[in-house]
């Protein structure tokens, strides 16, 4: 028997598979399409203090190896999230992690306090990395001090686990991650989408209404995988890998690079049943590898790598 459950930031997840923010709405949209009992946790659409209309359409473009989105954090806002969406999500047989984004540390804190005190909330994901919203000066995701202030404010506002979702686009992701860890984040989500664009050669115009969007899908996997490996060298808190996971083997790569859990997003669009397939195949891998629990894979490639380096040194 393989135990598919894992521990993450004080939570017990039924499986290491989480559904990434922005791809499952608030959860119930996918009721009947996804077997939520196989989902360790869903991460809701990012909630902001006030409702947001989002970016001008078109908001989607396809690209080889993935897609671009420029939704721009369209969401119902905190009030309606609390009065309506959170309770609906809470009825699903999985944990609910609320993704939040504010413009200031105090906005992040207010969101975390209001959502964190609800029993449906298992944890909060701090979205400091949306590529589709602009900030006056340096983007928040590339600013260790800014991220530190956000995490510290959120930490004071709730006792619930705090996940910090990083951007793969920062020049020095390690500094941002370390700042987040020091400020009290319980886990890192590595990572969000990468900025990108497409141009329609017939209309000779950008395909996205917002010009730029976030790249997700298989093209992103090697980028974010390298980040997971790199960050797990210097970071003590658990890492949730994310980016381009479509099958169990993709998830295993992230776990072997050092991730404790992983998020699936874009793959859900083409194949909602991808959840079952990944979880079932992971269990099969564990059975044939003689691994009792899936957390046994975390960092496995690093151990092999160290042995390999040592052998070479000898």
């Amino acid at each position: 028997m393989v135990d598919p459950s894992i521990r993450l930031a004080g939570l017990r997840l039924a499986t290491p598979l989480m559904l990434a923010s922005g791809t499952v709405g608030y959860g119930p949209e996918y009721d009947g399409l996804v077997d939520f009992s196989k989902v360790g946790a869903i991460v809701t659409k990012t909630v902001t203090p006030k409702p947001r209309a989002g970016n001008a359409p078109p908001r989607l473009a396809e690209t080889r190896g993935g897609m671009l989105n420029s939704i721009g954090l369209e969401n119902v806002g905190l009030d309606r999230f609390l009065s309506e969406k959170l309770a609906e999500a809470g009825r699903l047989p999985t944990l609910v992690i609320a993704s939040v984004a504010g413009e200031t540390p105090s906005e992040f804190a207010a969101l975390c306090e209001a959502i964190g005190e609800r029993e449906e909330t298992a944890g909060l994901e701090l979205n400091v990395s949306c590529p589709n919203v602009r900030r006056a000066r340096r983007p928040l995701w590339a600013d260790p001090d800014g991220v530190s202030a956000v995490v510290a404010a959120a930490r004071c506002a709730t006792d619930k686990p705090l996940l910090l979702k990083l951007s793969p686009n920062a020049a020095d992701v390690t500094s941002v991650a370390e700042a987040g860890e020091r400020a009290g984040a319980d886990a890192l989500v590595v990572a969000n989408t990468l900025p990108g664009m497409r141009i329609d050669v017939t209309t000779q115009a950008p395909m996205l209404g917002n010009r730029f969007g976030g790249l997700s899908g298989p093209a992103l996997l090697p980028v974010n995988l390298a980040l997971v490996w790199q960050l797990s060298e210097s970071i003590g808190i658990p890492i949730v890998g994310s980016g381009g996971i479509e099958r169990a083997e993709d998830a295993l790569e992230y776990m072997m690079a050092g991730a404790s859990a992983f998020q699936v997003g874009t793959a859900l669009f083409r194949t909602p049943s991808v959840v079952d397939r990944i979880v079932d195949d992971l269990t099969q891998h564990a059975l044939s590898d003689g691994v009792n629990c899936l957390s046994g894979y975390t960092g496995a490639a690093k151990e092999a790598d160290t042995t390999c380096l040592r052998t070479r040194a000898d």
Partner: protein
Amino acid sequence: MFDTAEPGQFVLVDTGPERALRRPFSVAGVTADGDVELLIALRGDGTRALADLPVGSLLTIMGPLGRGFMPPASRRAAHVAPHAAGATQGASEAAPWSPDADPWSPEAAPWSTEAPPAAVVVAGGIGVAGVRFLVQRLSSAGTTATLFVGARTGDTLLHTTLPEPDAVHLATDDGTMGFRGTVCDLFAAESATLPVNTKIYGCGPRAMLDSLSAIADERGMACELSLEEMMACGVGACRGCVVSTVDGYRTVCKDGPVFDASVLVPERCVIEVADG
């Protein structure tokens, strides 16, 4: 399997792992066995991949999805309003169609007891695929629809895929078949003779739908339009396929794909606002 499909609803088709997004296609009809019929134009790599599949291949299809057309005498009340009014849950996101609330059933169709209003169906290009099922349903409900079909050239006219291709008013941009001009020009010329309680159904390129909407507005006629957008989730979760309405952005996949013309903000207006 697709017995519950309503005219105007759509399905999402998986075209293979090379493409991250499924392709939306209107339900063009449902066979007696409950199989869904799709009319697919070769327009890009996704549709080409489908065309290259050998006969008998298994397709992964999700649906029927979205909100379809309403019968001529009924108008979708508060299509958009519940969101704006901050209505309590349930009311704002009620299941769009269910067998016991089928607006096409004889019990629900008000025209079964009253004089049926006239219906006009206007399709441009591949928009024919979006109204074929509607034309079938109107016909079986005893409503005679006047059909207008347009295309760029005679070669690309798709009226022959409709149940009664002979009774169709045709328009081509180059005049190679039927009226020379757009299908909206043709409809505008004819519409003066139609009774005011005529309901207009449209499917086609967005510019055509916006023209149609303007004509309907001028004549005071009810009008429903079927929109198309690139989609990701198909269930209203990702907010990727939104269009501008009088009540803000609404998803084509769940709030649509059929919208009452009166709630849609014409695309030209959107551009003017953005520039100005």
